[in-house]
């Protein structure tokens, strides 16, 4: 009963009602999402291995990071994910205005993230913390840089979603692309949370 009443909002595609498992987006997009996650898993494992080689250096360097900026960026990305979830829901309900507003909010969050990252990078470099300083900062810049690259792709994806939100109706394929794009943004968020914990918090 609950399924029947919730589905039209949370996964409105006629074939998705009932007990059939519902895949957000289209199955194909998960080839990319899982593939990317696997590779980031390898990145994280490489970092952990390097950290095990020099635990004191990594812990001392960790304390020189700006945890305030890191935490703010985490909250900014979590907020943007909330905006995206709400936007997808609004698109399903054909509330175009609300969807566009929510996606604009997510875009603003994304740009705040990029701006804060730029501030963080410049202050770190000004303080003499450059990639060549030690292995911690080498990995810090590379891992956050690769994540930033994902955020920039994500900005493109959010703009694409914004153009779709303007349409009065969406075909099943377009709706699947919108959901896939939203899932990508959540992946960007998820990877940052992992990265934040790994670089800023784990001692």
């Amino acid at each position, binding site marked *: 009963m609950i399924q029947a009443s919730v589905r039209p909002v949370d996964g409105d595609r006629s074939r998705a009602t009932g007990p059939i498992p519902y895949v957000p987006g*289209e*199955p*194909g*997009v*998960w*080839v*990319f999402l899982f*593939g*990317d996650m696997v*590779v980031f898993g*390898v*990145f994280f494992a*490489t970092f952990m291995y390097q950290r095990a080689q020099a635990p004191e250096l990594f812990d001392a360097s960790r304390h020189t990071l700006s945890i305030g900026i890191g935490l703010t960026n985490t909250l900014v990305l979590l907020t943007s994910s909330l905006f995206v979830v709400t936007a997808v829901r609004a698109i399903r309900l054909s509330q175009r205005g609300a969807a566009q507003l929510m996606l604009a909010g997510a875009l603003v969050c994304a740009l705040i993230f990029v701006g804060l990252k730029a501030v963080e990078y410049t202050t770190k470099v000004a303080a003499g913390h450059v*990639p060549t300083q030690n*292995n911690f900062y*080498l*990995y810090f810049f*590379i891992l956050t840089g*690769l994540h930033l*690259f*994902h955020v920039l*792709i994500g900005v493109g994806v959010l703009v694409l979603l914004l153009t779709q939100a303007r349409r009065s109706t969406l075909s099943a394929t377009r709706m699947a*692309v919108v959901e*896939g794009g939203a899932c990508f943004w959540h992946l960007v968020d998820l990877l940052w949370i992992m990265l934040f914990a790994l670089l800023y918090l784990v001692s």
Partner: protein
Amino acid sequence: MHVSIEKASAWLGVAMLGGFLVMFWFIAGLVPPMSPALTADQTARIYSDHDLRIRIGLALMILFAWLFVPFLALLSRQVRRIEGYWGVMSLTQVMLSVTFPFGFSLCALFGVAAAYRPERNPDVTQALSDMFWFIFVGLVGPLITQVVILAFCVFIDRRQVPSFPRWFGYFNIWYAVLGVPGCAIYLFKTGPLAWNGMFAFWIPLTVFCIWMIVTAIMLTKAVDVEAAERQARAANREWEPAA
């Protein structure tokens, strides 16, 4: 006949992938890569100690790199079929395909030059060796552009029976994203983004191998789709558009 020639070119791509691994890894011994942090003397010693095997492995690549072309021709033809005419996407695909074998043969020429005169000044050998790695690992732009175009084509294919499944489009984006870090090798001498690093070398190499194999399989399926289309057209006595 068309079908078997085209499927053969798809598998030739996989055979060349195997050939590349044998030539660079087992014959030349240049994979795993030497460290960019080595001094000129250390680098030159590697080339003089293994000069013959390096020259044989790379000479084979200079000769055979061009056998990648039929694979890329088939890829371009399939993009052309999706686009429907010789438009920007298929022409870009063709032009970038021309650059592909150079990625392998041009770097091999520099590697061969480095190993050719073991008695020469180590600084010169190191410079030639740098050129080998800069082209082999760092020249990622052409292939990434090809793969992004291919992904885009998969997504816009609106025909009744598309040539490729949609997941193949996302798979290509995955490859494109992971291929990008290779472009950073010019900035690092150590670490994961150096030319012997995890992110710039090992992951892109692994993903490239997976991409070649998956793409070859997908191309053989696309050839079947095309053959079925041609048969249906023949049965209906429709004119086949010039392909």
